[in-house]
């Protein structure tokens, strides 16, 4: 492998969401990721849709696949007593150990930080418990969507007076928590490269999520009102999403007066008279609903293709609200090779997203997501030096399973 993490090996117990994305990014940067998983208690994502029609089972999930390219799969059944020795032996041969369980799981398996450190003095050990390792709510459970709610992002996102909506996704699992976790692990790897010393890192997914509404904490604590405002932004009118005649949405954001003047002129060419000039943003702000209504009516009479083209031509900041189909066709993403299509023996062709930046080295190659246990023998023999007899015995005993 090449990349800034070439030569780095990770023993990865992460599953489902946030944790899996940390190690996906590390794999793309050249690290060897050894994903520990088992048929006895498979990652829920392996059984989660979407599936290509007609396929099923532990290898068929497109959702699992999207988070797990550039990883190797080592089948190890942690409920078997013999598994611990194998995990510890692996841990003594890696640079980092990662997990995102509730507090107590790694400890139950005898794989706590002190226990791993005893066999690997300078290991980097990342945990990502939902609410941190300690405290009255440390055993609480949740998913990305409930963490977004708990962390304040949901209450602040929506139309005033309506049920708040957040992002409509498990956002903390996809951006703040893997992103912050990745930054922390890389900082520890950098420090280790300089000093030779390891580190234990704890990322509370709750605390990490509160960091992406940090500005609201500052404002609210100082006594200023902080609430959901929909698509409104002071001084920017119109700003919002407008439905086109073909039932698509276009986003428009006139942050400067000239943007509005261009939009007004374009609407006027279709005979839309926006009545008063409302040249300044404060004039428009005072009559925001009226401005939005005029724009909404104009957009509603045009197809998405036409409205997008016309707004772009005259320089009104705008864009189609891209669907999952559109992003695959987006020319910017395509030119930057953001999508990489892998060929998977069960799923077939599937585009994977890459890291959100390109470097001088260009995009690296990508290996498809592993089948469960696909690399067990390779790792057992090459990393652990295991004999084939021992491997057969442990497989039959459902330890390597």
């Amino acid at each position: 492998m090449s990349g800034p993490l070439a030569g780095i090996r990770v023993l990865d117990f992460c599953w489902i969401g946030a944790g899996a994305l940390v190690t996906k990014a590390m794999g793309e940067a050249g690290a060897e990721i050894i994903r520990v998983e088992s048929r006895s208690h498979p990652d829920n994502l392996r059984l989660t849709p979407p599936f290509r029609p007609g396929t099923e089972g532990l290898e068929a999930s497109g959702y699992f696949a999207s988070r797990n390219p550039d990883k190797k799969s080592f089948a190890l059944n942690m409920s078997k007593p013999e598994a611990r020795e194998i995990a510890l032996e692996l841990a003594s041969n890696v640079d980092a150990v990662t997990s995102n369980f509730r507090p107590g799981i790694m400890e139950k398996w005898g794989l706590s930080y002190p226990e791993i450190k005893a066999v690997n003095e300078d290991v980097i050990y990342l945990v990502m418990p939902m609410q941190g390792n300690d405290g009255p709510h440390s055993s609480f459970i949740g998913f990305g969507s409930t963490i977004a709610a708990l962390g304040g992002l949901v209450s602040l996102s929506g139309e005033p007076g309506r049920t708040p909506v957040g992002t409509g996704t498990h956002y903390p699992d996809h951006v703040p928590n893997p992103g912050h976790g990745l930054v922390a692990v890389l900082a520890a790897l950098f420090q280790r490269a300089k000093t030779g010393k390891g580190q234990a890192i704890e990322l509370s997914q709750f605390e990490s999520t509160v960091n992406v509404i940090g500005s609201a904490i500052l404002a609210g604590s100082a006594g200023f009102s902080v609430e959901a405002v929909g698509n409104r932004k002071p001084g920017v009118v119109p700003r919002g999403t407008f439905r086109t005649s073909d039932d698509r949405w276009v986003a428009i954001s006139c942050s400067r007066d000239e943007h509005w003047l261009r939009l007004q002129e374009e609407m006027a060419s279709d005979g839309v008279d926006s009545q008063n000039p409302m040249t300044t943003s404060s004039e428009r702000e005072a009559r925001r609903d009226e401005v939005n209504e005029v724009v909404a009516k104009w957009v509603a009479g045009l197809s998405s293709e036409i409205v997008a083209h016309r707004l772009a031509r005259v320089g009104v900041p705008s864009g189609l609200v891209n669907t999952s189909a559109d992003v695959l066709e987006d020319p910017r993403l395509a030119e930057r090779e953001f999508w990489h299509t892998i060929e998977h023996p069960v799923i077939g062709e599937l585009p994977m997203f890459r890291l959100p930046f390109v470097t001088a080295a260009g995009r690296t190659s990508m290996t498809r997501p592993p089948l469960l246990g696909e690399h067990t023998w390779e790792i057992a023999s090459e990393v652990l030096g295991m004999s084939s007899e021992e491997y057969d015995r442990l497989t039959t005993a459902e330890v390597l399973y």
Partner: protein
Amino acid sequence: MSDGHLPLAGVRVLDLTDRLGWYTGRLLALLGAEVLRIEDPNKPQEAPLPPAVDVNGRTVSFHEEYAHSGKVISMLDLASEEGSSALADLVESTDVLLSGLDGRAPGGWAEINPGLVHIVITAFGWAHTPHDDEIDDLLILAAGGLLHLGGYPDSGPIVPYGGQSYLAAGIYAASAAMFGLIQVEHEGSGYWADVSAQETMAQALEDSLPGYVLTGKIRPPEGAEGKEAGTGTYACADGYVSMVAGRLGTARAWAALVDWLTSECDEATELVNDEWSDFAYRQTSEANARFRQIFEAFASTRSKETLYLDAQRRMIALSPVSDVSDLLANAQLRHRGFFSEYDHPILHRVVTAPGPPFRFADVELPVLGPAVEIETAAFSDRGST
């Protein structure tokens, strides 16, 4: 094990970014880097990012204050000869340079500093971002596909709070800076990365992308309703709660939920009927709507805090939809000493700030306060390092 040094102690970061990269410097400062931000007094002022307030003729943007916390800020007239020469000196002596659309292209400082880590942060990537306009968060989310999954099915997509595409670009730019520092540490040569905020959003589309590719279906926005009984946002006595119970992997939570509701609410007894144990039935709009009626009737006399604690005791993934005051009072965050306070230099009020998104076992990360302005743009003396 550790000598207690911060991971980025001794690392210099020069911050020339626009709002897409502000948060990067904050994260690097948290990790111990010295972050010097240069602002050009002659550059046209952008409208302050919300939340912002006007007090005594001065505008305080909490977004900016938060993103710049932990930095040192200095003014430099970059159009002047002295200014541009001072900048070149700073670039020569920094380890990491963060810049945006009005800076140089990725790698454009290599002649002056061959070992530089240069991170360029723009909306759509250096070559694809129009240089004449600032790009609004709303438009980045629209381009990245995340906007389409949010908002209300009837009234359209709604941008989430707080400039999420700016923060996401900031986080991943920080990871790029770390990759760069690691590579430079090993190989000595420089590194650059060209970060696209659009791409940070396009990696957050969860199952919708493979869903489209594998089934041809475009995932519609779910709104606040959720797509099945047991999962969604529900009204209660003093606000809302958010729950995930009953979908794959949480089958036991559904049983616990039924048990809870039926033990405390007569109207819920129908949930023990056979059809409700079938996940496919719970995904029907009829079941989803009926469950909402039952649960919201139950929740209407209970606070979000009561529901939270009762549900968690039963291993049901339910959380309050917290507002800022809930967060400031949250028992878990208080127990963990998450918040810190500072006296606001302009507002003359006490402001509470969130703690770091991660913690290191052997070293306490610094408590960040508002950026400090200094007269002369210079890094501190790092002595023998």
